């Protein structure tokens, strides 16, 4: 099998887009484009872009650094500066990168933020993260509280609260740093492009219902959601990327082909899995290969919904710009209650014809991880699909034990084989 995956057209296109974005960020101090740091869940990219500002997503920087093998010195530097071993490695990677000169994963220098837009969506650590960054950058910070869907749905009062904050706090802050007035027509145009991209993304993700699946909805989906989770939602480049991606996946499906993986194209798919939890980034390809080598394809994942849940019908709505931004934030995966997460997973297992359910639990992220053992048992109970539980971390390589993971996964796949054999005997 080939060491390198076949590069899809969309992958090459994305690589160009990301490279160009980082170069544009590096040039921002000269071009005068304002820079807004914000987080992936609850990112308001359409709004930020409508002010001519450029978004920076610290989680993306951290995971990209880890994929390039650069996260550990950053984490070590942060721990040396007093950050606990026990806390989120994304934060430490970001803090360490900043202390080392803020050179981003692609080798270009990241500009200082003109504004920290703390969209407090589904993750407590975000709040501390930007308090920490504010200490360093001494720049304005604006806060958007996105209420948690504790009762399983967004309430009208919660929606009104978010819209009020966007209108009364966020927009004035963006006006101030950009020197531009709020232009709702421009925002509507961005949102229309977002909705078109979201249609295409959902078509791509739902193509995994086919057998064989033309995509891997966990490892492969990391690439598919990259632009929409980061700087490109609502942009023309983003819209073009998703149109191209959809075309590519539909062509592959028509040919009955599986997705590209680090072990080559996965046409012969023995196991169809649903996966809960983020991937490991320090050993991303090695981790993926543990699945691909066993003929396991992931047909649905929750991580691919962390920056927005679109496959249950939500679309950004140009007709209700601020309300729809609020709905978007509220619906991000980790802002949903555990029963909602279980219901989502149950529907994935059933609708995507999965024969197994796997939790990859990461040490860094309590928002995902706390409660996952209960989720595992509940999804197993409701679907009958056998579950498995493996652990590592996001960007701290010390918690990635390849032998242990491989051993557990192989045992799990053998169990799935035995179960299948038993069912057909």
């Amino acid at each position, binding site marked *: 099998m080939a060491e390198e995956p076949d590069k899809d057209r969309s992958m090459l296109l994305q690589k160009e887009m990301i490279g160009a974005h980082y170069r544009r960020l590096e040039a921002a101090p000269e071009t005068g484009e304002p820079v807004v740091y914000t987080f992936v869940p609850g990112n308001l990219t359409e709004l930020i872009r409508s002010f001519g500002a450029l978004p920076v997503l610290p989680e993306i920087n951290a995971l990209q650094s880890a994929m390039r093998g650069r996260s550990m010195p950053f984490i070590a530097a942060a721990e040396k500066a007093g950050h*606990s071993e026990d806390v989120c490695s994304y934060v430490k990677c970001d803090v360490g990168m900043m202390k080392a000169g803020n050179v981003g994963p692609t080798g270009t220098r990241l500009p200082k933020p003109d504004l920290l837009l703390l969209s407090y969506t589904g993750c407590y650590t975000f709040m501390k993260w930007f308090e920490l960054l504010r200490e360093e950058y001494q720049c304005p910070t604006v806060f958007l509280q996105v209420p948690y869907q504790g009762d399983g749905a967004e309430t009208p009062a919660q929606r009104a609260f978010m819209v009020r904050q966007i209108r009364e706090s966020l927009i004035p802050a963006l006006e101030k740093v950009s020197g531009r007035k709020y232009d709702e027509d421009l925002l509507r145009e961005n949102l229309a492009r977002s909705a078109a991209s979201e249609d295409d993304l959902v078509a791509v993700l739902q193509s995994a219902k086919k057998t064989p699946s033309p995509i891997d909805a966990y490892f492969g989906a990391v690439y598919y959601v990259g632009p929409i989770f980061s700087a490109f939602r609502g942009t023309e480049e983003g819209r073009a990327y998703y149109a191209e991606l959809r075309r590519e996946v539909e062509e592959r499906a028509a040919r009955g082909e599986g997705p590209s993986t680090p072990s080559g194209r996965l046409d012969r798919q023995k196991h169809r899995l649903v996966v809960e939890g983020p991937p490991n980034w320090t050993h991303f390809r090695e981790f993926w290969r543990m699945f691909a080598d066993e003929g396991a394809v992931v047909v649905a994942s929750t991580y691919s919904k962390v920056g927005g849940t679109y496959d249950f019908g939500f679309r950004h709505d140009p007709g209700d710009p601020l309300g729809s931004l609020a709905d978007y934030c509220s619906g991000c995966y980790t802002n949903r209650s555990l029963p909602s997460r279980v219901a989502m997973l149950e529907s994935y297992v059933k609708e995507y014809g999965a024969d197994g359910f796997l939790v990859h639990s990461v040490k860094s992220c309590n928002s995902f991880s706390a409660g996952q053992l209960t989720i595992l048992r509940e999804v197993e109970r409701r679907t009958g699909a056998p579950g498995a539980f493996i652990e590592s971390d996001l960007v701290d390589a010390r918690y990635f034990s390849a032998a242990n993971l491989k051993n557990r996964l192989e045992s799990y796949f053998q169990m799935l084989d035995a179960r299948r054999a038993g069912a057909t005997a």
Partner: protein
Amino acid sequence: MTRREIVDWAAAVADDLEFGAARAWLSEDPGSKAAGYLPVYAPREVIAACGMLPVGVHGGGDRLEIIRGDAFYQSYICHLPRSVVELAESRRLAFLSAMLFPATCDVIRNLSGVWQLLYPQIYVRYLDLPQVADPEAGAAFWREELATLARGLGEVSGHPATDDTLREAIAAGNEARRLVRQLYALRREKPWSVPTEELILLMRAGETVPLEAFVEKMRAYLAVAEAGPARVRDRARVLVVGAFCEQPPLGLIKTIERSGCFIVDDDFLLGNRLLGPDVLLEGDPLEALARAFVLHAKRTSTVYEPDPAGKRAAMKERAAAAGADGIIFASASFCDPALLDRPMLRAGAEAAGIPCIAFQFAENTGQFQQFREQAGTFADSIKLWGGA
């Protein structure tokens, strides 16, 4: 009542993992109900106004063997949720008709979902505290949350809260907070009169008994602590920061105080004094509670700090207010709020020239030797070189 009698009462209540005092209250009226809440802050007044007994659920400490709870949580998650689940799975919390989960961190937030899945017959509510800088928006949001909570608990208890019952509960809460503040002030002034191990037992007991019983014991304790002769001792005065959720075992608190320190301020059971001045009794009571939180709640790691200089200033201000010579950052292992805050708080303290040490604990920590050595050395260094 003597000091010993009060402290014995408090210890018996605080150590009782069967929640006998709360069960006794319930048995007096078969139709009555109780609502549990987790750290850090829950509006006990709303629970009481619905005719229910508020019961703080602060884990099993070092007195509970974890048999089932570990099956619910990975090794890298703090100890508190596993002991809370252990309490529930062993039916020790079966007397609760409702459970409230305040916005403390993602672990407690998700524990609300675990509860919804495991115990669907219980009323479960996640309390999304207001975090925004704009007090008007924050108060409006929190008032709405409180109203939703009051409706929900009213349905559970069969006694919907009214403005009158809310005001009555607020008045009682104000009185209890005044007494807590008095006790903390007395400890600041005469720490030898109020050993923290006794103070903590009283606070813990106060979380699980009816408020009147707590107030009665607090008054009695204050009287004996203010009047009683006590040997003045010269020790290092320290602020203990970071233990606002998972509580340290009593042995750890004793260890700190017996190694040459007086604890003159702390975060233990912070929810009982989070609101500052008295909550207003005039006007809409839910609005008053909401505004009290938004405008006057103490700074804590679980709530956003809108002031860019706030984190750096926090320790200097607290140490000055308490007359503390040094700060001990004592956080529960894997406690995101405390551990993520620590670098900022410590940097502020060190910039102000305040000596600091840091360690981590779990509620079931059983070995204290390392803490004794660390705190003892810290106290010695303050005494030898402090103010130099």
